[in-house]
């Protein structure tokens, strides 16, 4: 069990470092690739905490679909040429101060919470049990989420077919 704790801390260090590097990169493609490393680490944390199905979904959806979508946006819209040349202090200082305050508050909340010391025992959930509980007990939430996705799909189709679209530029379809 001490091995599991060691794996968790190493994974946490890798995730935080990769995200930190991804946040501070100037090159957008490098940032996206470092973030893929971070998402792989998160998937391994899910696997370690006993959720292998969620780990697989994390790799497929986050590291696969969303990050590839970001790469497509970067490469198709040529945003890379407009990357900022230097970090302005007036923009980073308030964000850093706010983030530091928030981090201190998170640390205080976590370490003064009596429920935070609850030990995570090694338990695994198989995808079959997970799906049965999800679609039997939480079917209404699943229906609501699917309806929301349908609305987004119809909205994307409508925006893609909008008549005011310029035929040459590809810049207006952002995210």
């Amino acid at each position, binding site marked *: *069990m001490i091995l*599991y*704790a060691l794996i*968790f*801390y190493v994974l*946490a260090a890798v*995730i*935080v470092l990769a*995200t*930190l590097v*991804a*946040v501070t990169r100037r090159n*957008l493609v490098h940032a*996206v690739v470092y*973030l893929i490393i*971070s998402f792989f680490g*998160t998937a391994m*944390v*899910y696997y370690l*905490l*006993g*959720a292998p199905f*969620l780990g697989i979904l994390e790799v497929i959806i*986050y590291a696969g679909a969303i990050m590839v979508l*970001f790469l497509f946006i*970067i490469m198709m819209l040529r*945003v890379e040429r*407009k*990357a*900022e040349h230097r*970090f302005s202090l007036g*923009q980073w200082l308030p*964000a*850093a101060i*706010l*983030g530091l305050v*928030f*981090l201190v508050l*998170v*640390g205080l909340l*976590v*370490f003064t*919470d009596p*429920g*935070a*010391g*609850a*030990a*995570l*025992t*090694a*338990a695994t*959930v198989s995808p079959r049990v997970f799906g049965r*509980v*999800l679609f039997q*007990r*939480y079917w209404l*939430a*699943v229906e609501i*989420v699917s309806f929301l996705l349908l609305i987004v799909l119809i909205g994307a189709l409508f925006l893609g077919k909008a008549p005011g679209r310029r035929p040459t530029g590809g810049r207006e379809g952002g995210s």
Partner: protein
Amino acid sequence: MIVPYGHVLLLAGILFVLGLVCAVARRNLVMVLLGVEIMLNAAESPLSGRLSAGNSWKGRCLSFSS
């Protein structure tokens, strides 16, 4: 026992703060969206540990639906 649940929460908090700083401080639109993605990912990660902590299904299903 793997780790205390507070450490998972702390990891998620650090990731959330990093995403927040990225979304606030960067000027590029793609980096702002990337920060939002980091925040979403950080918000769902502590929920997945709830099954191991309290034998509750709600965290896992909430995490799935996000």
